[in-house]
């Protein structure tokens, strides 16, 4: 096991960040085990071998408030970093809130901008901001083909089974979001015939574990989904929604939430509300970018980091 000194890692992160205020997480699948790397351009990512993909989340195109008046600019920075990777990712996984207001112009802008990433495919799951006014119709018009008109789907790539889920519609008052019976039944059928040794990666916008119920940061019926995943030896759940990195491991299931490319949100319970966090001028990038990530050699899952990362963490010097 080799862990980069956390102080060094943090110092490096602060040094490297500069005006950076967006981030993409680079994932590599080595021996069937997904591993997260830090900021996409971190030199450690040059050591990535095998199958890689990148995660982008919460681009919120259309947001233009105090917390970040230029979400297009921060996304462009993120795209540039991805395009500068020495090993291009096989694809991008966008974990929702592509747009801020579900406007057609915002979806169009997202398609144009994300199309500049040098990958041949992007897999999306919807966020609740992509489901305004006319539900998921705008989202599904653009990204519904993979699920034959549904917002959930699966596909296989390099021996990994990927599942995209939707937990952003039909909200009930005072309750956390749900996946719903129809989708859960589909998930159970989708997984039923697969070998337990198949690595599984699940994409969903809202966390599939309860990060903070008071703010709705969880999925009420996720236990049923997790029950169908539990028999697999390697399950990685990638979420967005909370605009910060958090990690948790339960058995063979590792949960990860991602940074937004648009604006930060407070750590769970650290503010009166989960609204966009306005940080002092010049510190937005550092606020979003600081991250510490630990990978332990020989473990089938990422080490548990079951705590809020209230600050920043962009470059996590990851070695394994």
């Amino acid at each position: 096991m080799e862990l980069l000194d956390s102080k060094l890692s943090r110092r490096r992160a602060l040094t490297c960040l500069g005006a950076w205020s967006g981030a993409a997480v680079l994932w590599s699948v080595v021996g069937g085990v997904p591993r997260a790397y830090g900021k996409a351009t971190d030199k450690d990512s040059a050591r990535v071998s095998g199958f890689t993909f990148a995660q982008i989340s919460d681009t919120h195109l259309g947001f233009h408030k105090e917390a970040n008046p230029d979400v297009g600019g921060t996304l462009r920075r993120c795209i540039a970093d991805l395009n500068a990777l020495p090993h291009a990712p096989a694809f991008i996984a966008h974990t929702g809130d592509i747009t801020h207001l579900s406007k057609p112009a915002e979806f169009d802008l997202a398609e144009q901008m994300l199309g500049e990433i040098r990958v041949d495919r992007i897999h999306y799951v919807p966020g609740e901001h992509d489901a305004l006014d006319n539900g998921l119709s705008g989202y599904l018009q653009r990204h519904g083909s993979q699920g034959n008109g549904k917002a959930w789907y699966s596909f296989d790539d390099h021996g990994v089974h990927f599942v995209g889920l939707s937990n952003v519609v039909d909200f009930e008052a005072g309750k956390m979001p749900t996946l719903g019976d129809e989708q859960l039944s589909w998930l159970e059928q989708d997984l039923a015939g697969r070998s337990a040794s198949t690595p599984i990666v699940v994409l969903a916008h809202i966390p599939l574990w309860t990060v903070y119920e008071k703010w709705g940061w969880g999925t009420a019926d996720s236990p049923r989904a997790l029950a169908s995943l539990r028999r697999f030896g390697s399950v990685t759940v990638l979420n967005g929604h909370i605009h910060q990195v958090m990690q948790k491991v339960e058995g063979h299931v590792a949960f990860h939430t991602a940074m937004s490319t648009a604006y930060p949100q407070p750590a769970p319970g650290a503010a009166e509300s989960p609204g966009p966090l306005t940080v002092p001028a010049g510190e937005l990038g550092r606020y979003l970018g600081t991250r510490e990530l630990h990978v332990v050699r020989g473990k089938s899952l990422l080490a548990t980091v079951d705590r809020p990362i209230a600050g920043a963490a962009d470059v996590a010097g990851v070695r394994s």
Partner: protein
Amino acid sequence: MKRLIASLALALPLALGFGWIDAAQAAGPATIEIDQFKFGPNDITVEPGTIVEWVNHDQTIHNIIVPAARVSSPGMDTGDHYTYKFDAPGDYPYLCGLHPHMTGVVHVKPRA
């Protein structure tokens, strides 16, 4: 300052009406402010025919879902308003369709 004036305008009929918002005699609709992911007030009683207005002061978007009235507002960006006229007596729980932990209720009943 605008928010303070709006709050005072709301507080006055509440104080006089013991929880009632008497929109029929007010200059404008009964107003519910959205601030810090909360509805204020989040429990109001109005007479039938009252127009209720929600005003979003948050930096992010909200919308209003009133299941019993089959109402779903468009997304409300900062400063946006949404109004709905409550004609039929009854209790109308509502929520933000983006943040379901944000809830409130409008009671509609004739003044005794």
